[in-house]
């Protein structure tokens, strides 16, 4: 019995031998918040943005050190470049808290699939970060801009992406999982928000960029980048991007401007928008119906219109619907004719509507899509007028 106990004890003790395996102390980590991938010739150049925790924390008084550090390294593959980075970085980069991945424009033109493989395959990357593309700049340059208010530029990239998706509609926050799913779907095209740099790119690195009232170098989301397969095709304008959001049911809130009956403008705030895409086949020919249901409030009135009358509200509804409809159709046409890529998932809608028919046309979808009949129906209802009924302009006339 005593012998058995000893053997048990020895077995338990062997467990201790492997102790602390894969342990990492917090101060041995370089927390990467943003990763940039560029392609230079045949090599990948990667940029990591690493947080200096001491500079971020509230406790210590700010020194002159930058809150983030960026490291660059080149390699034949991304994995090689990341490991090579240990030769210059103080600590081993830790990717679990990655917030955003910036893909360089050059890389995007050549195709992004290969570059994303490591990110999706490696277990240290959590799949909850967003992917954006740099426009008219390299990812390296984007990650080398210091941003005011948000000390960590990656946070700024993420926040404005989120906020503008929610309140304006010209960007879409694309999660890595969504992107990979879209890329693996041959019938569907991907969309990624693109960011561009305003101001002298070289100055963004400097601490002075965050010390002034007016920031010299700014990062701004330009619109959505359209991908065919895994290759970048072109950038949509802001209003086109908004229309895409309408079609993709991504609008949470945005602004519409309409013309008043007698000169002047009126803006409405869209508070809710639901889009239903319905596919159908007629004599084997696919057809798409898009129903956009919009609820809005009157936001700003800069003309003489009597909003207390039902007629005026009807007018506002009609005009808004018209505006949305026009722009959406125009965008649709551009996507269908110019890019020839289904970024809306119309194929999925047809698949859902009639799987058998869809199977027949599935392989020729890319050639069918440009000529696909799409009917857009917009319905707008106005809910409220705000805290004011009629415009300030209309009052003096009544007196």
């Amino acid at each position: 019995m005593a012998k058995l106990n000893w053997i048990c004890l020895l077995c338990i003790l062997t467990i201790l031998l492997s102790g602390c395996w894969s342990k990492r102390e917090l101060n041995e980590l370089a927390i990467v918040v943003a990763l940039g991938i560029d392609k230079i010739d045949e090599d990948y150049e990667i940029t990591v943005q690493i947080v200096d925790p001491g500079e971020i924390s509230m406790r210590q008084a700010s020194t002159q050190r930058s809150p983030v550090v960026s490291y660059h390294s080149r390699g034949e593959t991304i994995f090689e470049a990341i490991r090579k980075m240990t030769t210059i970085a103080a600590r081993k980069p830790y990717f679990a808290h990655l917030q955003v991945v910036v893909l360089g424009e050059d890389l995007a033109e050549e195709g992004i699939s290969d570059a994303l493989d490591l990110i999706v395959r490696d277990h240290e990357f959590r799949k909850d970060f967003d992917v954006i593309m740099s426009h008219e700049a390299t990812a390296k340059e984007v990650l080398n801009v210091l941003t005011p208010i948000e000390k960590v530029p990656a946070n700024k990239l993420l926040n404005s992406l989120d906020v503008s998706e929610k309140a304006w509609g010209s960007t879409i926050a694309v999660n890595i999982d969504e992107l990979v799913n879209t890329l693996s779907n041959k019938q569907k095209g991907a969309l990624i928000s693109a960011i561009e740099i305003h101001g002298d790119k070289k100055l963004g690195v400097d601490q002075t960029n965050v010390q002034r009232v007016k920031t010299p170098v700014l990062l701004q989301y330009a619109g959505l980048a359209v991908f065919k397969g895994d290759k970048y095709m072109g950038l949509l304008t802001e209003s086109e991007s908004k229309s895409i959001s309408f079609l993709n049911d991504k609008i949470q809130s945005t602004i519409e401007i309409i013309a008043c009956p007698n000169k002047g403008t009126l803006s409405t705030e869209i508070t809710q928008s639901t889009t239903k895409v319905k596919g159908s086949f007629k004599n084997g020919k696919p057809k798409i119906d898009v129903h956009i249901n919009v609820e809005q409030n009157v936001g700003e009135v800069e003309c003489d219109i009597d909003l207390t009358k039902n007629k005026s509200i009807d007018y506002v509804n009609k005009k808004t619907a018209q505006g949305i409809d026009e722009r959406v159709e125009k965008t649709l046409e551009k996507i269908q004719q110019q890019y020839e890529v289904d970024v809306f998932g119309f194929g999925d809608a047809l698949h859902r509507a009639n799987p058998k028919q869809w199977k027949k046309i599935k392989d020729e979808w890319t050639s069918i899509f440009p000529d696909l009949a799409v009917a857009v129906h917009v319905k707008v209802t106005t809910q409220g007028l705000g805290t004011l009924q009629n415009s300030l302009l209309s009052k003096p006339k009544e007196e």
Partner: protein
Amino acid sequence: MSMYNNAETSPSQNDLLYTSLSKNIKIIQQSLGHSNDIIIREIRIGEAEPHSLAIISIDGLSDKTTISDSVIDKLMANIEEEQDIEITTINQYVRNSYLTVGDVTNIEHFTTLYSAILNGETVILLDGFAEGIVTSTRSAKDRAVTEPSTESVIRGPRESFTETIRTNTALIRRKIKSPNLWIKSRVIGDVTQTDVAVMYINGIASDKIVAEVLARLDRINIDGILESGYIEDFIQDSKNSMFPTVYNSERPDVIAGELLDGKVAILVDGTPFVLVVPALFTSFLQSAEDYYQHWMISSLIRILRFFGISLALVAPSLYVAITTFHQEMLPTPMLISIASQREGVPFPAVVEALIMEIAFEVLREAGLRMPRTIGPAVSIVGTLVIGQAAVDAGVVSAVMVIIVALTAICSFLFPAYGLSNTIRVLRFPLMILAAMFGLFGVMFGIMVIILHLCSIRSFGVPYLSPFAPLVLQDQKDAFVLFPRRKLLTRPRLVNQKNIVRGHNYINVKNRK
């Protein structure tokens, strides 16, 4: 007192008292080593034929006023008036007619004589009789009944047990005025001869448990019992378990409540802590006050306690596990904040945690053992050293201080001190497991603890009941507390026969 007649030791022949008074006195003095606190007062009564007798007591244990007023005074004053006492029956006269003390018994053996006087009684020996008369003169050199110092309540009785077993039994009797409240007494400890009383309500407590308690008490073979902790160690089921399987309290109302639940109380002379068996895990997380305030509030507080016990057990190990193995589990801003505090800390997180936890335990122990006047000094040093200076010097991180403080506060949340000690000790192996295997290790440790808890019993009752095994109807007084009108039945596994609390709840009985 009846106790002395029942003296279980079969007295040998030379244990019997002699007829000669002087011989008896000589033997007594020899046996007690001529100790100077033994008072042997020899007096003569009767004038015609003076008859000598001795009054034997121990100074300090017996009540001097009673001895002089009710014994010596009576004997000396009255005997003279009645000249015609028959010498042969003088002991009966003394016993029946003169002693004005309540409790009088006869003894014939030296051993019973010794235990009588050592208990504070006075023994009267008459020359020519091989027997003595024990008169009850115990003095109540007793601490007053004060407020409980370890289990305080806002609302509830303000009394606690004292060191005297008689006071303690009386305190319980005053709460339960039932003829069914029975006391079985034992004298344990070959040398200390400590009185131990087993109290239970006949008809409610399970006979099996009462018999088992008495049997276990009878098996105790030791020279002395100085505190109920001795008894606890002897009678508990799993001697190697760190978890207490015997409950203790210094509150009469708690003990009365437990007796009404059908449990058995063990009172030990010389300590205010009364033991209760069988003890369940949940008892240690219940305070007397739970029953005195609104049930919803009590329920919330109980949930808070369960939360507190978990936190006290795992907070430091979770910190160690997450910050050294699973950084991805933290939200990014929190990770950055913690990382910034750990900048420049020279030790790994586990060493930091161990340093802080041990430092806290040291301070706690020091605060307890220190003379009360120095106590505040210790706490000042503690706050300064542990809190401020250690962080400023960069030896430990501020988060660690928060974790230690949280753990400490949570470990003070237990109404019963016994469990809190266990939890505090178990923290350390969990921390080491966390340092080696991360959350995997912590979960492993917790599973071992839970399996252990499932395996132990207290006097035949599963320790984790009513959770494991699950007794649905007892959930009313476990994790939460139901309103009083729903608490109609006694705990199922403690009570088998008399489970219904009131006489007008016949429906419940039939439902079974």
